[in-house]
């Protein structure tokens, strides 16, 4: 097991290097750079620039080097000084900008992940145990609607329905009052209420997929001989479902977890804009648009690394869950 983990860790390094190059390349791919967007933004406010001003700015931001030189400098600073560069847009170090929202982002992503699996596992099991029942169809149908409705639209529809019925607009996780006064116990119910919409919107987009995986896997496992063996032993249906089928059905579910994380990151970007969530997604999108490349690059890198780590963890979990893999790796 340790050897397996070690081997995976070693493979992690070249992947990380490739990924950072790819990300940096992708981010600087669109035409223009931060100076052009900076000039554009200020021009819109009635300021004027000359060609020399712009050249000066480029020099100042270090944007006149070719992209690989910029990449090299970026990585050098990350490795040697833990410095992820400077956000042009915010006028601060990238890391401090990221830290603003990092915890909330991680918390939101984690909660959504837990929500997705917390909801879809039982539903998937239920649907498998009650295959072709009304409940199975109804839950699948709702799941599909959640998946088929684009996140942004679902968010707007839910917010609108809530607004029409309560007169309240739930934008963001914190109300103005909470932001003004800091978190207090009396705000907790409202805060939880505010969490619900993003949870539903971002959560449902992935839930359906997991439900279907779980359901299909459970059905597969239920058809296997060993469930018969267990039943013949006198095991209860619950034991068969949870001890035998679920355990085996979890494999693909676990290996899909890292993918879910990536979907959550992407899904939450669009949703977070619509619902004004103070998480990384919108920052990333603005950074991408305004070519604030170190900020964008770092966020994408962090997300990619999280997904990679997620993959690694799920592979390890898989090995731990499934003795066959465990032994195959040992041998």
């Amino acid at each position, binding site marked *: 097991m340790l050897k397996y983990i070690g081997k995976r860790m070693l493979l992690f390094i070249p992947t990380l290097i490739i990924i950072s190059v790819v990300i940096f390349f992708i981010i600087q791919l669109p035409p223009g750079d931060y100076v052009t967007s900076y000039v554009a933004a200020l021009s819109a406010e009635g300021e004027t620039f000359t060609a020399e001003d712009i050249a000066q700015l480029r020099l100042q931001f270090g944007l006149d080097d070719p992209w690989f030189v910029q990449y090299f400098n970026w990585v050098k600073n990350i490795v040697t000084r833990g410095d992820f560069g400077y956000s042009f847009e915010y006028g601060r170090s990238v890391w401090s900008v990221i830290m603003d929202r990092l915890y909330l982002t991680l918390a939101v992503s984690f909660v959504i992940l837990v929500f997705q699996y917390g909801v879809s596992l039982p539903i998937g099991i239920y649907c498998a145990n009650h295959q072709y029942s009304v409940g199975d169809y109804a839950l699948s149908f709702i799941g599909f609607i959640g998946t088929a409705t684009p996140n942004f639209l679902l968010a707007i529809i839910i917010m609108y329905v809530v607004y029409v019925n309560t007169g309240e607009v739930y934008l963001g996780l914190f109300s103005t009052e909470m932001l003004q006064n800091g978190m207090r116990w009396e705000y907790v119910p409202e805060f939880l209420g505010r969490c619900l919409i993003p949870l539903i919107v971002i959560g449902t987009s992935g839930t359906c997929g997991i439900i279907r995986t779980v359901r299909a896997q459970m059905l597969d496992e239920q058809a296997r001989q060993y469930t018969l063996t267990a*039943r*013949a*032993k006198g095991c209860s249906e619950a034991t068969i479902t949870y001890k035998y089928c679920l355990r085996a059905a979890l494999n693909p579910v676990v290996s899909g977890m890292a993918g879910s994380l990536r979907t959550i990151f992407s899904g939450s970007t669009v949703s977070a804009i619509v619902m004004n969530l103070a998480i990384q997604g919108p920052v990333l999108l603005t950074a991408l648009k305004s070519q604030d490349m170190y900020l964008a690059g770092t966020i994408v890198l962090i997300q990619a690394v999280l997904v990679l780590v997620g993959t690694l963890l799920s592979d390890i979990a898989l090995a731990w869950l499934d003795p066959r893999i465990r032994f195959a790796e040992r041998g």
Partner: protein
Amino acid sequence: MNNETASKETILEIRDLKVNIKTDEGTLTAVRGVNLTIKKGETLGLVGESGCGKSLTSKAILGINDKKCKAEGEIIFDAENLGRVNLLSLNPRGKEIRSVRGKQISMIFQEPMVAFSPMYTIGNQINEATLLHITRDKKKAREISLDVMKKVGIANAEKRYDQYPHEFSGGMLQRALIAMALVCSPRLLIADEPTTALDVTIQAQILELMKSLQKDFGMSILFITHDLGTVARMCDRVAVMYLGRIVESAPAVEIYKNPQHPYTRGLIGSVHKIGTKAQERLFSSEGTVPLALNLPAGCGFYDRCSRRIDGVCNVYDPQLVDIGQEHQIACFACTGCPYGKGGKEEKANE
């Protein structure tokens, strides 16, 4: 063959068992009124080719057939805790039937490789029945399991106990499977082709093992197979099944000496004369049991029967008839038409 231990006491009686399977194309009656009795300490062989309904019958006893299957009739079992009880009347998911499964009736499946969950150790899976039925003490259960494992001839049981199925060979797994079935000392063991998946030498070992274990545990065995050779070795009595029906039933010796039903004779013939092409066909895929969906009226074996009587066999449905010496047979050619005109008639569906 433990003729001495075979008392008159019946442990299991199957009366007119029917198993219907719902399929996309309609309901298929795969077991069409089976009657069987198994006595205490007796080994009953249930013989028939694949798909004749023998596995369905055995699973019906435990109530572990697929949801699509529905069993009718009666399966009376002499249960320790419940007295004589119709197993079919019990809720297939209920506590009562579960107290019978594994504890009083247990089962050995044909393919040991898939009968174990790959996720848990062998010990864990053998233990389970003990923990369910005998003791909640894990240490004790482990001891019991190890004991049984040793009994079934698993060398190095202590180490094997903590291994996973994929670390076992097929024969070893079958032993483990038998250990799992015997761990609660059941009164009835259903062995569903326990040796099919194994190679010949292992087969013999396993069969010997089962025989000796039956002696030790004093249980009855329902031995299901398509292989008459094995039956001869193992069983006290034999019931031959064809297309969801028992077509012949007799003590093992009798059936070998004096097979009556053309099907039985064919079966025995095929054992004796391996290599005869015409008979091989019987077991080839092409010659399998017809689709039971739209069965023609009359004897199910009519199409393939060399002794068929046109106008009788394809019109009337033969029933089991005593022909003496505990020998029963369902064949007009052997017994003559017992009904005459106006008997049980089924119109062909064509």
